[in-house]
């Protein structure tokens, strides 16, 4: 404590707070996925949840200082993008 501790912020507890706040946002988006009246509503909710999960993975990897979680977040971002495109193509009703 004192002058030496003053220059370091507490990375662990700060980013765990970020992860908890993002989890609450994911719950808000999950309500829209459950009670959305049409199918595109649910797809919008799932897309929002995907982005929040990516940011939560990066924050979690920062909190525990594990870079491998951030690599998982990169792969998850690209795969969720491809899945969103395929669901949109399916809703559109055309041939693949």
């Amino acid at each position, binding site marked *: 404590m004192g002058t030496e501790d003053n*220059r370091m912020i507490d990375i662990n507890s700060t980013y765990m707070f970020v992860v908890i706040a993002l989890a609450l*946002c994911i719950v*808000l*988006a999950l309500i829209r996925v459950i009670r959305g009246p049409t*199918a595109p509503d649910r797809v919008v909710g799932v897309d929002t949840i995907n982005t929040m999960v990516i*940011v939560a993975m990066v924050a979690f*990897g920062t909190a525990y200082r594990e*870079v491998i979680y951030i690599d998982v977040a990169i792969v998850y971002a690209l795969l969720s993008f491809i899945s969103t495109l395929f669901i949109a193509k399916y809703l*559109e009703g*055309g041939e693949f």
Partner: protein
Amino acid sequence: MIFDLIIYMFIGIGIFFNVLAGIGLLRFPDVYTRLHAGTKCTTFGSIFLIGSVVLIGLKMWWENDTNGSVLAIHSAIALIAILLTNPVGAHAIARAAHRSGVEPANAVIDELKEKPMKKTKKKTTRNKEKNEEQTGGD
């Protein structure tokens, strides 16, 4: 230190916009307005949240910690992936919603519906062919 203050400000802005995205998804009346809230706010919030991670990585790198450079570069790559893929996905969802026949709430006129589209043309020609086949078979 002013660097930590900048990091806390970035985290605050990011969490604020992500919470706005969640509230907007619940409160807006329409697919298109929900898409507006849920995509733009999460993109803007994730820029600031991952930007704070990049700043922490640069700070650790400045203090001769070799994990800092890996943290900053990989977080920046994740941010670039989000920035490239999120608007494209939102555009695809909006186009799919319009073509699958979802009406905007409280809309008076829909000018996009008057333009001819390739998909509907293909469908009508295919249905005509099917009908001709059926009638020809009968």
